[in-house]
């Protein structure tokens, strides 16, 4: 990321923090709590999460449904706000940012790949890929663009509209979009959830390549053990708590942990 991009991405100076990130983490969450409802209907979706995501690593967050993994992703990505606790993306305390600055930060420091409906249907694949940069009014690095679409084999599809692409192609366009702005971190929320196993493996393999070749930080949220094994580190969530972690996971290892969690 250039210094210019940083300047617009975090226009308000990061406030003095109690435990500032040490520089090796792309993202740090500290005592993150998210509560929905009140009184009898109170649900503690996140109940004191402390986590650090290392730079240049592929991390997966797993958990049974209702474990809070989606809420965690939304909060980490600045799409939702915490009830209490803090989250830093790089050296920016995003819990201290207002809605507008959060939006400006998301533009270039965060990338997204959602499970479905990733693309604006009126725009071509190329326009979808450059959309965050266009929204930010930033120039597109053509060399990097060519490199990304080369890796993702999207060159012949660039002029197509989303409705003319297969599910796998659509998700690869979303991945290209996420990679193009070289964000601090990419959040992928069940990106292969709607894909068949071949397309799924292809997409996750490409994400892994991005981590290995370009040092991109990626956080993958999934409930699928076959997807989680593409990551170098798996964090298990249950009832709003981090309950376990695996490094260099295997399918059997992940399934084993999931079984104990009742997922």
């Amino acid at each position: 990321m250039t210094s210019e991009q940083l300047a617009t991405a975090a226009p308000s100076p990061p406030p003095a923090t109690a435990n500032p990130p040490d520089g090796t983490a792309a993202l740090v969450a500290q005592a993150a709590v998210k509560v929905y409802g009140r009184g009898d209907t109170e649900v503690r979706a996140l109940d004191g999460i402390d986590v650090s995501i290392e730079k240049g690593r592929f991390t997966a967050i797993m958990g049974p449904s209702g474990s809070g993994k989606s809420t965690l992703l939304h909060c980490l990505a600045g799409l939702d706000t915490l009830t209490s606790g803090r989250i830093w993306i790089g050296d920016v305390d995003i819990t201290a940012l207002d809605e507008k600055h959060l939006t400006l930060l998301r533009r270039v420091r965060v990338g997204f790949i959602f499970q479905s409906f990733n693309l604006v249907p009126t725009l071509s694949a190329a326009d979808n890929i450059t959309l965050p940069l266009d929204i930010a009014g930033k120039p597109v690095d053509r060399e990097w663009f060519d490199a990304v679409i080369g890796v993702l084999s999207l060159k012949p599809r660039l002029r197509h509209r989303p409705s003319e692409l297969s599910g796998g192609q659509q998700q690869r366009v979303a991945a290209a979009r996420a990679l193009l702005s070289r964000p601090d971190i990419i959040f992928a929320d069940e990106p292969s959830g709607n894909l068949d196993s071949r397309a799924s493996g292809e997409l996750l393999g490409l994400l892994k390549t991005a981590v290995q070749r370009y040092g991109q930080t990626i956080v993958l949220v999934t409930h699928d053990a076959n997807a989680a094994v593409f990551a170098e580190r798996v964090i298990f969530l249950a009832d709003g708590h981090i309950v376990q972690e695996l490094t260099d996971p295997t399918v059997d290892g992940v399934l084993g942990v999931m079984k104990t969690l009742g997922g």
Partner: protein
Amino acid sequence: MVKATLQGLLAHKLRLALAALAVVLGVAFVSGTIVLGDTVNKTFTDLFNTTTAGIDVAVRGASTGSAQGIPQHPPVPASVLPTVQAVSGVKEAFGDVERIGTTIVDQQGKAVTTGGAPTIGLLWNPYPDMAALHLKAGSPPQGDSQVVIDAKTATNHGINPGDRIEIILPVGPPRTFTVSGVAGFGTQDNLAGATISAFDPQAGRAILGSETEYESIFVKADSGVSAEQLKTRVAAVLPAGVEAVTGQSLAQEQTDAVKTLTNVLSTFLLVFALIALFVGSFIILNTFSILVAQRQRELALLRAMGATRGQVLRSVVLEATITGLIASMVGVAFGILIAKGLEALLNAIGLDLGSTPLQVAWTTVVIGLVLGTLVTVVASLAPAWRATRVAPVEALREAVPPPTAVTTRRVSVGLGILVAGIVILCLGLFVVSSSQLLVTGIGALATFVGVAVLAAILVPPVVEFLGWPVRRLRGAPGKLASENARRNPRRTAATASALMIGVGLVACFTVVAASLKDSISSTIDRTVTADYIVTPENQGAGFVPLGVAQALRANSSIAAVSEISGGNFHYGNEGDQAIAIEPATIDRTAVAEIQQGAPLASLGDDAVAISEDAAKNHTIKVGDAVPMQFFRPGVRSQRVATIFARNPLFGDYVVTLNTWRAQNVDVQDFAVLVKGAPGVAVADLRGKVESTLKSFPGMKVQNNAEYKKSQANQIDILLNLINVLVVFAIVIALLGVVNTVALSIVERTRELGLVRALGMTRGQMRSMVRWETVLITIFGTLLGLAVGLFFGVALVKAFASLGVNTVNIAIGQQISYVVIAFLAGLLAAIFPARRAAKTDMLRAIVTE
């Protein structure tokens, strides 16, 4: 199924609200217009029943034709009065004289003007049981220096019995009178806005310039003699060309005459009201289309559960019926308010409806309800039919319906309607001679529909083109705005088409008005050589009293005084207009392009000059005789002495002032042209003319340039009035834009959430929606301008025979409409933009 419909209706009531508002406004306009018309008619019916209540029989000249659908009756010789008085059974007989152009001057020296109602001078009817006017204060006028005026004028201008006031008379110089009393008609203070001056029944005949004739003779029967009996007896003694009617049929005729006039007004307003409703139908069509598209899954589910196509159709139509009915009810209620507003407007321009309550007939309510509901239901039929095409399997698919492609069938249907519309329009304008307005209207309607159908094809390229600056200046939000405006061409087209209609009408009338102004201006330049033109200040209702020309002739600084007068006459059974000129001076004040025959200066009293158009239409040439029936009885055979190139000043038929005055009763001038004597500087002449006119308040002196300007102003006033009426339709169309964009935003929740997640700020989101709205608005405006300019030019071409010989498309004004549309688009965007900015990002991106 009915239950599901009703629940659906409740669930969508907010979405339907704006569309329903379109129907409410349309129905309100329609019912308000009808209520107003009924109220005006009721006012006059009551008034004429009051004014003729005591009259058993009226004697008058047999009709010599009609003007604007109202029969005209010439006066009766004064000698008929004693003959009638001698008839047995006649208790009282009163000879009446009535002259328009009898203007009261208030104590500040200003002429009392009306918005358009006449200023009437008449004789005081001394028989109280027969009289329409009754004293409210003071005494009846006696001798040649007293007058009774209407109570309204008296109150408004602080005139009391005993005051001395000046009155401008139709003949001779103005005179000063003592107000002997103040009078009203029954409970009304005046005659629906007209001013009244009543003079002594004997002396008044000379004052009003009618010493040998009466307009009518009013007769009261002895007790025991019926009006019918008396009518028969009176009729038996009348000379040829004079007839007797009962007071009752007189009241009926007068009421009918007013109805003819109010019907013109009502029809005029009703046309705009129906246009508003027509525009509303586009909004309904669009709203139901969007709702059906959004409910695709719901409808598919119903179908999957066994609902038949018929049931789905009925459910949508039922929803439309209920919406239409409720909206129409609100509309009718709102219409009464509109009628109140229109009544106040009429009052402001001088038509006083007095104390008559608003007439809300049950037929008005029924018409409003039926019309509003019908329009809603008809507009919902196409979406309803489309709803039946939803296959049950769609229930299982992704919710977002793909925008339907523009089919070749649409192209051929659209082109068919458009071509038919243009052909019918041209038939109406250039070919048919009866029901022109109706045929032209149908043609215009079909043209609008044709363009609306074809508009869907134009959406992608035109919006692409219009969106260029938006994309350049607003980056990604601009690009998305332009893509959104063209993503569903049918929807954008329908929304824009609603706007097209209003804008088209405004553009059309602007072209006509500008061309008319140019033609009048160039006519004045080419034909008027006088230094000054004297006209009444109040051009709508006023005339130049004959005394003005007389006074000017006595001024030695003036070399030529040339009166211009004229009015209706009949050529066979056909009504037409004649212009009357003074041949002795016309060559020094005006120029006609003579094509054949003698110059106008040598026009004889037994001759007529005709335009080449009239010569062509009637296949007449110089030397032929033209049968002309003026107001007074007897067809005059006028020899064609001259054929000239038509222009708006001289019209088609020109006769001498002598001929005109001999054949008519109200013979005041439209204008008096003045040319200065040699050696008198034009600038000095104005002061001299003005000082001569000092005793004629309400006259103005203008040079050519000023006169052109005042003529242009009159046209602008009319144009603005029409524009105000069209604004209704435009407001409805803008509501439609708001509605369409707002509904589309609901449909795009997920997409909006996505772009917010990708870093679009709320401000950018608002900007995106704003530019989408503006693009739709501008697209509709441009369609409107295209159609409107075509209509305008076609209309001007059709008016060529009336002397509108230049086409001016008023490009500056048309551009200003685009600017206004741009601003209106920004305004329309406020609500949907706010809504879009509030999109809940998480709800949008979380997979259900």
